[in-house]
């Protein structure tokens, strides 16, 4: 397989809610095996973009291809097959409230693969520990978890089928810094060993810095720039400057030291 193959191709996307236009003529390419970070101000339509790509919102115009297929024209059965190849973590977890954490993870294993129950249990408890939840979290209901734990449980569910493509909406929001760093590491490792592609909406500068190969900036209803951290730091657009050179950014990226670290990786 071509390492640079495009796994998500968005062309001329337009989405709207009533009279509010969220995206207009938006283009984006995501390459196989990369971690792409989507940044943008609150309400610029990052979550909507994610939902549109996975087919939960119908675009008003434009074309979206995932795995080289146009979802809008794909027959239902093909679509279902495609959907099994990606995992989605929603911004607010969106766990099934009447199932325990372990059952939430097992839903896809049971419905799609009909795995035997003992194996399902093993896989569920493995995923639970991998995402950093305590081992006894499996028997708990979502309402009995803390906000950060719900996020992790959502990630474990997104990872249940070991997807090739992972959509994450603010995965580190609500995690403590240690947990967030462990999360970054987990994503990095999974990405390396499974050649995972990750589409990640995030405001976490540390995450952007640590694991994103490329960053796409959403503003003015479009993706205005796509590039590496270095490109971002050098970009003249005022919002991007504010974002990557603001006081928080300086602290997170450690100014010159941060630049050096970016150099090392690229």
């Amino acid at each position, binding site marked *: 397989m071509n390492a640079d193959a495009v796994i998500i191709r968005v062309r001329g996307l337009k989405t709207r809610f009533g009279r509010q236009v969220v995206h207009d003529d938006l283009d984006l390419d995501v390459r196989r095996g990369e971690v792409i970070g989507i940044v943008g101000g609150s309400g610029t339509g990052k979550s909507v973009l994610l939902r549109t790509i996975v087919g939960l919102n119908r675009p008003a115009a434009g074309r979206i291809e995932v795995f080289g297929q146009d979802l809008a024209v794909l027959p239902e059965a093909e679509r279902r097959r495609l959907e099994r190849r990606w995992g989605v973590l929603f911004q607010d977890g969106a766990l099934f409230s009447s199932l325990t954490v372990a059952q939430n993870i097992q839903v896809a294993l049971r419905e799609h693969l009909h795995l035997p129950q003992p194996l399902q249990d093993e896989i569920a408890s493995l995923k639970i520990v*991998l995402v950093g939840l305590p081992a006894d979290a499996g028997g708990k209901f979502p309402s009995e978890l803390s906000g950060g734990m719900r996020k992790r449980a959502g990630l474990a569910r997104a990872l249940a089928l070991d997807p090739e493509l992972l959509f994450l909406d603010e995965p580190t929001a609500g995690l403590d810094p240690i947990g967030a760093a462990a999360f970054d590491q987990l994503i990095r490792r999974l990405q390396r060993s499974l050649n995972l592609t990750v589409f990640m909406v995030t405001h976490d500068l540390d995450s952007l810095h640590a694991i994103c190969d490329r960053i796409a900036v959403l503003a003015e209803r479009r993706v205005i720039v796509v590039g590496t951290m270095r490109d971002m730091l050098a970009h003249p657009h005022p919002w991007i400057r504010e974002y990557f050179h603001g006081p928080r950014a300086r602290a997170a990226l450690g100014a010159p030291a941060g630049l050096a670290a970016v150099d090392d990786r690229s």
Partner: protein
Amino acid sequence: MAAGGFSTSQERGGWVLRGGGRWDVEHSAALDAALRALEPAGMRSLSFRLGEIERLDTAGAWLLHRTLRQLAAAGIACDLAELRPEHQAMLEQVAIGDRPAPAVPEPLPPLLAVIARLGRGALDVRREAEQLLGFFGAVSAGLLRTIVQPRRLRFTSFVFHLERVGLNALPIVGLISFLIGVVLAYQGAVQLQRFGAQVFVVNLIGVSVLREIGILLTAIVVAGRSGSAFAAQIGSMMVHQEVDAMRTLGLDPMDMLVLPRILALVIALPLLCFYADLMGLLGGGMMAWLVLDISPGLFIERLNQSVTVWSFLVGMIKAPVFGFVIGLIGCLEGLRVGGSAESVGRQTTRAVVAAIFLVIVLDAVFSIFFSLVGV
């Protein structure tokens, strides 16, 4: 790409396991069964040659890890050869995740489980009765407070609910009462005609509709429509912690949610009941006219002789009480919702069942009471 699989063979250096294909979650069921069936008897060492594996995901790596651990526990020396670096990394990742699963409590023996359930059920009934009583007290206190300080009432909310539970219920309550009036008249006519006493059908309709059927039907319809709606609305607010948010903002859910709803039902139910009485009599009168040739004039005259104002008042007195009970139960069940969507459904069902049950029990109590006081 090939399905994941492996073969074992005995070679010069000892046993060898050769794996290949896709060791991933899609093929994990077959791999799981095969690896569990791996017979270590007679092996001293096992060498894993896994270079042919095309894809190793967490499920596949888990199976490999588990097998390695089990073989090691059985005292068999294992070594991994030819493992690709990315698969090695996956295996290490999975090893981090291998923690003993927390012990699941032993299930009770069946007989004991039944007894335990029974006991828990009995305790639940008691707790629920206590809660209902407590809530009744709180709502009564809230209502008294509202009477003393009418400004506390959320007037907008009250009017909104009055429209929902009262005005919007008119079509269904009217239709059902009318039809029951028709049925009653027809069935009564068939029976009474045999004694040549058909004109008494007016007594039958008048007394039964005004005293019992009008109010009971209204209460049951409203319990199904509005009691359930209250429970579901408040319940889903509980799920999303909206009620907690209200409390932290210094707003009393009793004032904001419960009292406007209950008050709306207490006002709406007598009005609905009055309307249901009218429609029931109308349906009965029409049927009497069509089947028994009792003209409207005669119907009204007979009605005048057969029912007293008390027949009407008995129904109307019960109405606000039933409204209160339906609202009380609907709101209480809503507030008892836990964190899940399922519990919204459960409490909503309970709200309807419990409200209808209590309405009928109270109706019986009223019957006894009215017969004691002689009306």
